[in-house]
């Protein structure tokens, strides 16, 4: 009988961007057991959010740097639902444009990191160079490259004028060629395809039972995308015709990355449609009083479904804010994905779920 060795992919590891402890039990080269342990990045944000509901816009952004606007939108939406405020249409469209721009930069980031995890540093640098197009455009729109600080309860804080709309459109035009290149590489490049096809398989039943969200679930055949639930529209997605969720059947690592690549195309079309729908109007409504009541708010972040629960009782301090981030829901599915795989396949599989551990630990 073979002996089992314990290999800790510890909080500090060159392939991990953020600290998570994955304790593997390995027999020779094959993984037979896994225990994840989280909590290294816990900053107590849920407790901090109970201080003052007006300042939480900025705090919720800083839960994560890559999906910061999506967190801020989810929080703002939850407070707006508690207080019964409807932001104007132009504000919803601007929020949607920023959410989709954030999705582009997040997907380019993870495609680059996945390339880095398999040693393909050339592709990492290409993806991150293309990401600079998005970073400059959001710096133009919002003033910051990372934490946009564009949301406030009742609308958005800055407007986009016609000159900025033209610059967004020319940036999107640059992506026509860049995305076509990336798509061709991801489908045909032998390094990428041979390394990633067939590893880290998650079946459809496992994805449903273990609560996978986002591209991890959609690559395994579970058609779950918050943007398609028409019963609870959020931002301006109910106005867009070009949205179509991307679902694939295979459930392996290559499918997950292809899911993200195809989402990049859909996102590009959505931003163009939003820009076409912009009409002159106000960008914010006045807000009086304090939130009294509770509400849930769900948003499709780049990694999956992000849920916020806000409960207030009429004071500046809130009673409870609960955040459920997509990576928190995607870590239990790691266990069946990694069973039976080779030790050398661990970095690409772990990186393909798009782990954002600062989101997980808040």
């Amino acid at each position, binding site marked *: 009988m073979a002996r089992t060795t314990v290999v800790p992919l510890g909080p500090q590891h060159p392939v991990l961007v953020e600290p998570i402890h994955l304790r593997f039990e390995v027999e020779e080269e094959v993984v037979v057991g896994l225990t994840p342990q989280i909590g290294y990045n816990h900053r107590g944000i849920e407790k901090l959010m109970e201080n003052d509901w007006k300042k939480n816009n*900025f705090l919720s952004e800083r839960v994560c740097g890559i999906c910061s606007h999506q967190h801020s939108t989810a929080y703002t939406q939850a407070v707006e639902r508690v207080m019964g405020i409807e932001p104007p249409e132009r504000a919803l469209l601007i929020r949607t444009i920023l959410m989709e721009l954030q999705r582009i930069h997040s997907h380019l980031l993870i495609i680059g990191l996945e390339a880095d995890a398999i040693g393909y540093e050339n592709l990492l640098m*290409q993806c991150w*160079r293309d990401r600079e197009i998005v970073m400059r455009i959001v*710096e133009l729109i919002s003033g910051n490259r990372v934490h946009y*600080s564009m949301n406030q309860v009742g609308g958005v804080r800055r407007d986009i004028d016609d000159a900025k709309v033209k610059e967004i459109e020319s940036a999107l035009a640059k992506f026509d060629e860049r995305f076509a290149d990336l798509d061709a*590489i991801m489908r045909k490049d032998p390094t990428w395809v041979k390394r990633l096809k067939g590893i880290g398989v998650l079946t459809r039943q496992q994805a449903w039972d273990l609560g996978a969200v986002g591209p991890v679930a959609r690559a395994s055949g579970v058609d779950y995308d918050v943007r398609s639930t028409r019963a609870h529209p959020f931002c301006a997605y109910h106005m867009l015709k070009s949205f179509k969720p991307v679902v694939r059947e295979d459930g392996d690592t290559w499918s997950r990355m292809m899911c993200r690549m195809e989402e990049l195309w859909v996102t590009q079309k959505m931003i163009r449609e939003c820009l076409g729908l912009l009409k002159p109007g106000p960008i914010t409504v006045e*807000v*009086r009083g304090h939130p009294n009541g509770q509400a849930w708010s769900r948003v499709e972040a780049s990694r999956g479904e992000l849920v916020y629960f806000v409960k207030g009782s009429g004071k500046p301090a809130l009673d409870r804010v609960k955040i459920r981030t997509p990576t928190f829901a995607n870590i239990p599915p790691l266990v069946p994905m990694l069973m039976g795989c080779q030790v050398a396949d661990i970095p690409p599989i772990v990186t393909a779920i798009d782990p954002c551990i600062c989101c997980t630990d808040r």
Partner: protein
Amino acid sequence: MSMLTNSLKNLFSKPATRLYPYEEADIQRDCRGRIEYDMSKCIWCMMCSRRCPVFAIESDKAAQTHKVFRMRCIACGACVEACPTDAISMRQHYQEPGYAPIIDSYKQEGAPPKPAKKERAEAPAGPKA
């Protein structure tokens, strides 16, 4: 285009990076920077220090001074929006990293101006509790 063609194209084109700090940083217009006070307009409503999410502004009404901890400021602009007399503005400035905290002090000479009657959501009639 395959990766090989991509690499050859990159080999013979100019680099995508910028040799900062030897070259100037490329900052877009309307980029956030640091805040500045125009002390002739401040009426001491204290909304700026109350709204700051990181406590980067310390205001002393008796001594008529504002102290801004520049290294704490996250350039969110909440103070700029909260000020009823537009005494604070944000100007574009790329803050270089440094070794020591930078504290900007602003003192108001003489008596503060009378607050004008404006209908703003935070129009103050004196500091609220």
